């Protein structure tokens, strides 16, 4: 299974589509995050309550970044394995002719998407947590609600990403994943942010950890259910 995950990563890194997307995206992500952090630092000194509110303007930018990164991650499977557009069913044939059990294949796909999601998660959270630590060490009052909100939002995106990979492997291999990924990874951060902002789910209390946990459990149940029906799937259809 790990051999398969490694293979997917190597293919992703070398895929012309991924390459074309990842480099400009990395620059885009870097500047977006840095400007968001600087903005946050600047605002929190003046008014911590409006700092987290104003930072919401960066969410659409993060969303674009997240969906583009996922599109790049999954893009190789939609294009790199196809020699021509004539036969769109080629996707995944290389994986499926290898002596790998279906369950291993399935776990490999889930692990692959999970790793990608965790990378995104870290990319978003690390600059803010580093900023938070620096600010705290400087004696600045840090708005913890904002970090809870950020954790909630990114968790929903990561868990949603794993859920997407399960649905993707189980039903529509290759065909709709790019569109599905774009929609899901755009909607999830925006939606989760607004849910968090409205505090409808009690995010500022314990909801910031309870709801991602519930979501993870649902994904786990979906995962186990799919595992039962995995034997009879069309892998190259």
């Amino acid at each position, binding site marked *: 299974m790990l*051999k398969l995950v*490694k*293979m997917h990563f*190597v*293919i992703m890194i*070398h*895929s*012309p589509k991924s*390459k074309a997307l990842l480099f400009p995206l990395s620059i885009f992500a870097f500047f977006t995050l840095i400007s968001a952090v600087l903005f946050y630092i600047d605002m929190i000194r003046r008014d911590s309550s409006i700092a987290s509110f104003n930072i919401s303007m960066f969410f659409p930018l993060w969303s674009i970044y997240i969906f583009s990164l996922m599109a790049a991650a999954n893009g*190789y499977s939609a294009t*790199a*394995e*196809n*020699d*021509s557009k*004539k*036969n769109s069913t*080629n996707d995944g*044939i*290389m994986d*499926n*002719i*290898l*002596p*790998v*059990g*279906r369950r291993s294949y399935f776990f490999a796909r889930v692990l692959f998407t999970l790793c990608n999601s965790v990378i995104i998660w870290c990319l978003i959270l690390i600059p803010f947590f580093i900023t938070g630590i620096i600010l705290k060490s400087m004696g600045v009052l840090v708005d913890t609600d904002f970090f809870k909100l950020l954790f909630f939002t990114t968790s929903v995106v990561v868990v949603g990403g794993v859920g997407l990979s399960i649905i993707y492997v189980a039903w529509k291999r290759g065909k709709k994943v790019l569109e599905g990924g774009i929609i899901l990874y755009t909607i999830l951060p925006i939606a989760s942010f607004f849910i968090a902002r409205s505090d409808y789910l009690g995010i500022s209390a314990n909801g910031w950890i309870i709801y991602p946990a519930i979501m993870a459990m649902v994904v786990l149940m979906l995962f186990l259910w799919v595992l039962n029906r995995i*034997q*009879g*799937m*069309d*892998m*190259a*259809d």
Partner: protein
Amino acid sequence: MDKILELENVTKEYKNFKLDNISFSLEKGYIMGLVGPNGSGKTTTIKLIMNLLSKNSGEIKVFGLDNSLDEKAIKERIGFVYDDNIYPLGLKLSKIALLIAPFYKTWNQELFNQYMKKFQLDPQSSLEKLSKGMKTKFAIVMALSHKPDLIIMDEPTSGLDPIFRRELLEMLQEIIEDGNCSVLFSSHITSDLEKIADYITFMDKGRVVLSDTYVNIVENYRLVKASEEIIKKERNKFLSYRCNSFGGEGLCKNWHSLQNEYPDKIVLEKPTIEDIMYYISKREEVEC
């Protein structure tokens, strides 16, 4: 004899197409050609054997094992060449081999290098820079480098030049010489099959029309050339036929009776696979 591949009453249904009760088998050490017009179900059959598609009903056994329950063990022993490139375009050939090799216990790097040299493929070149024919060559190298017991090829010769096509056919014959390896080979180029196939399976409209040894097929059928009058009179004896202003011709299985009845009025010729394929696929649209 050991049956290396067995399909029994296999059915796969799509919205607009049905693979209907497919049954045929291949013995160890032989080459089987899978022929049929476009859309006859050859690629679907191959995908079902490889468990890339799930069947609706029936049984597929490879090396005596169920192809979905023992998928891993079976695929370890199969070399597969698809009719299109399935490898990632952005990678160098050596890198692709490096990624694929660990999946096979029997991968032989020396053999891989030998085939690369034989086929004049540079391991350092990128797959996307290769022509279609060269990509097919690489797919063949990948399929052969783990010493498979069964080679399944879907239209492997379609993008190849005549010289390499011939070399490939000779190589396949060499590979099966030891009697341990079998080949299932789908192709539109029927002359290739005539050169190497021991068995021929004809498919048409999702059904197996004929599956027998090449020798039996060629011996059992005759292309009968006669006047339009005779052809029309004996129409029931033909699988199908066609007529024009100079007379007619048709494919016939019980040709001995025609030979006895019209010894001087008909000409009998051994049909090619293409002739048989043409007449069998035209059964329902008799021309006259």
